[in-house]
């Protein structure tokens, strides 16, 4: 869609965010993340850096994950956007949100919205990923609390649920205590681990 200059130094933009149409006149330099947070009050999209590293600001623009700190509002003119506020539908958390909750994939929660947006877009492209693929897919999103292990499990949980698989219980239980076998502390049988290494030396 062509942008039209309205007032001197302003740009008219229209976009649909979480299904709602918005129109505004904004400064040409206004970052999309600022528009979402300050103009629309959608503060679930966060700012954690100024160099496009951290991914706390990831949203979906026409279905693609983008870092909203690295786009001008005017560049989103005519687009359909989804932010973290638009992920749960009718009060139902989606599979990824449930994965993060069940698998303890968040601590402080600051990176979580961006993580969920990136991970959902990733599963759209790759519904049955390996752990290495998940870790690679999350490289644009930094977390300082979890050491990523439970974020990986959250994505695996969501992948399974989205593909219609059984709801694997996570360590996070509700109060019914359905799942007591929760913490898989003991690593797999390690007796032969050193011997396995021998076969993998020149990986």
């Amino acid at each position, binding site marked *: 869609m062509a942008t039209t200059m309205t007032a001197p130094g302003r740009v008219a933009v229209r976009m649909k965010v979480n299904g709602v149409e918005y129109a505004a006149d904004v400064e040409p330099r206004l970052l999309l993340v600022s528009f979402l947070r300050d103009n629309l*009050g959608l*503060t679930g999209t966060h700012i954690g*850096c100024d*160099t496009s590293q951290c991914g*706390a600001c990831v949203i979906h623009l026409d279905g693609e994950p983008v870092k909203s700190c690295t786009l001008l509002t005017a560049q989103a003119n005519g687009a359909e956007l989804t932010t973290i506020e638009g992920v749960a539908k009718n009060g139902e958390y989606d599979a990824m949100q449930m994965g993060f909750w069940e698998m303890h994939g968040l601590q402080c929660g*600051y990176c979580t919205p961006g993580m969920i947006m990136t991970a959902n877009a990733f599963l759209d492209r790759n519904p049955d990923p390996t752990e290495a693929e998940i*870790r690679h897919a*999350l490289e644009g999103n930094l977390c300082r609390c979890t050491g990523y292990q439970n974020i990986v499990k959250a994505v695996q949980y969501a992948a399974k649920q989205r593909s219609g698989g059984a709801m694997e219980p996570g360590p996070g239980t509700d109060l019914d205590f359905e799942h007591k076998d929760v913490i898989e502390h003991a690593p797999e049988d390690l007796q032969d681990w050193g011997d396995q290494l021998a076969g993998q030396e*020149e990986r």
Partner: protein
Amino acid sequence: MAATIEAPELLVGQPIRRREDPKLMTGSGNFLDDIRLPGMSYAAILRSPAAHARITGIDTTKARNMPGVIGVFTGEDLADVNPLPCAWQAAGVENNVATPHLLALGEVRQVGDPIAVVVAESVYQANDALEGIEVDFEELEAVVDSREAVKPGAPQLHENAPNNIVMHWTCGADAETVDKALAGAEVRVSQSVANQRLIPTAMEPRGSVGLYEPATQEYTLWATSQAPHVHKLVVAAFVLGIPEQKIRVIAPDVGGGFGSKIFVYFDMPLVLWLSKALGRPVKFFEDRTENYLHTTHGRDHHTDIEIGATKDGKITALKVSTLANLGAYLSTVAPGVATTLYGRMVAGCYKIPNIHVDVKGVYTNTAMVDAYRGAGRPEATFVIERACDLVADATGVDPAEVRRRNFIQPADFPYDTGIGMLPYDSGNYVPALDLALQHAGYASLLEQQAARRANGGRKLLGIGVSSYVEECGIAPSKWIGLSGEGWGAGLWESADVRVYLTGKVSVTSGSLPHGQGHETTFAQIVADRLGVPYDDIEIEHSDTKGTPFGFGSYGSRSLTVGGTAIYKSVDKVVEKAKLLAAHMLEAAPEDIVYENGKAWVKGSPDAVKTIQDIALQAHVAYDLPSGMEPGLEAVTYYDPPNCTFPFGTHVCVVEVDRDTGNVEIIKYVGVDDVGNVINPMIVDGQFHGGIAQGIAQALYEGAVYADNGELITATMNDYAIPKASMLPTYELDRTVTTTDVNPMGAKGAGEAGTIGSTPAVANAVVDALSHLGVKHLDMPYTPERVWRAMQNGNA
């Protein structure tokens, strides 16, 4: 038990998913920058581009006239405001204290020092106007390395700190005694080690919102804070000089802290002062580069280690001499971290007869250094765990065996290390070591390593062991306080447990979370102890107006100190409930049994009064025992008798690429003992994150300053926060050794992972290279550094 009483469904020990999460996973959290107030204005800070300079003139005229600008202020405008205080000086020695003004007065001493503040109608306009401020500098020579700063002729930062020395502190036996023991040792090893400077990097940067209301003369400060009550006290009484009852501090959702949000920063009093001056609420939220330049850093020690041992690996003497770089000024608790929390912990898990520790704090033209996850204990653990491996190397004794031979034994607890630390409360170090070695497959790893070395393969195998003990839940006040270790306050916590008329429960706690899940853990404790449904319990925190005083969340203290205050308040509530139940059941109080939220007369379990029945009676107060006040509520101020000392052993297995120097962790095992666990899911999460930060120090992170004081690693593009693909899977297990320091038998868990992990990785990398002649290597183990070591070590 009587048939009518159901068996209690205990929540403690269960991995309850967190009640905090729904808002955070839907974007409904309320972080500092999410706060919107009517009439909000926005502050931006002009920061020094020079590491050391005299300010000879500031012209703000142009900035004042720029669009949207409401006000511009410099250090001169704030000359009557006190500088920030240093609240923990090194005990027993002279401290040459220099702390920062809110805005620089006359001189800047680090890149990023705040010089002026612009307040405008928008963040964009405030930042625009920074470019309208002109500052004339007379540049001075800078020094960034503590080893250079203490040399004669080095640039001097503060008139009251000759040779840039903050303080010179020692502990343990006197140096001569230890020198004699070293001289007489069968085996003697010396090594210089660096514990590089790190940048904490909470994902949420720091910020403040200030509101002054003239009609009531009340100040409200929202801050990214790990310690809102302390910030209230310090900002009111020590910086702005306003009555403490007129200030309220609120920590909204806090996006990680790792220590960096404990401290009092310039912007906290500044936004309040600005709000009063301008009649508008004022928000400041730093960007990431400001966070890296000017929010506190961690570590930055240079240490000389001398260690004496017998030929069979028994450590007989340890001498440690450290330069601790504390940055351009003293942050809130910096000297205490470098002394009490570091020097007094260098004995680690071991019985070492002769220890001498010497610490010099040093000013340099760098960001202030203060507590960062572990705070002193990671540095101490790195020293002693590298020392153990150096002894192993020098004696030929296996590194795990060196640890085993020197461990403090179960019968020795409580154990006094003789270097001024409180006695270690409890411990049993061998089982954790054995379990970790077993999980790692240690014996076959050693065989595999030998085979690979014989074959000369490209992937070198390294095995690193680290056994740690750490000090958390730091207390009691009479030990840590001014008359003891120099901390300028107490370190107790408080809690108020209130059962309403309807039987629902509010707990107000001085402790607060920034990601640790306090609401869930605390509610689990109350549900079990009081016998009310988990969902009937609300945990309130983080607002000084609604909660009793607390010293904040750091030092892995929330559960053991704050949680114990809650536990004891519940017990007081139960005591009153039993008195009232006795009255209601027409029995003697001593005959009342109270379990799982129900009271009955011993032997008569059919007549039961529930806690809800009792709470109703306590509030309607129609029929109370003579002299009993209405209500059902109890407050506890809890000062523990000791710290708790969790411990464990971590084993890291690495492959080092002989051609590229790249290090890959192929196995990571952590066996930790934090006593009784309330929520194992949360505790494991703390270890995951802690280990990740420890690995990150070993392999990736390091703050780098150019000689002129410019921070080279000033963005996330340059400072290597690890990504998901850069970290391994952590295999965790636990042993359980309880403590009698608190009634839950629990120890702290927030920092232990960071403390145990860094030396495990370091020892693994050095071990991988040891057959090439490498005895030690400084972190981070970048491919280049490792590759160079292989070339040099293999000469």
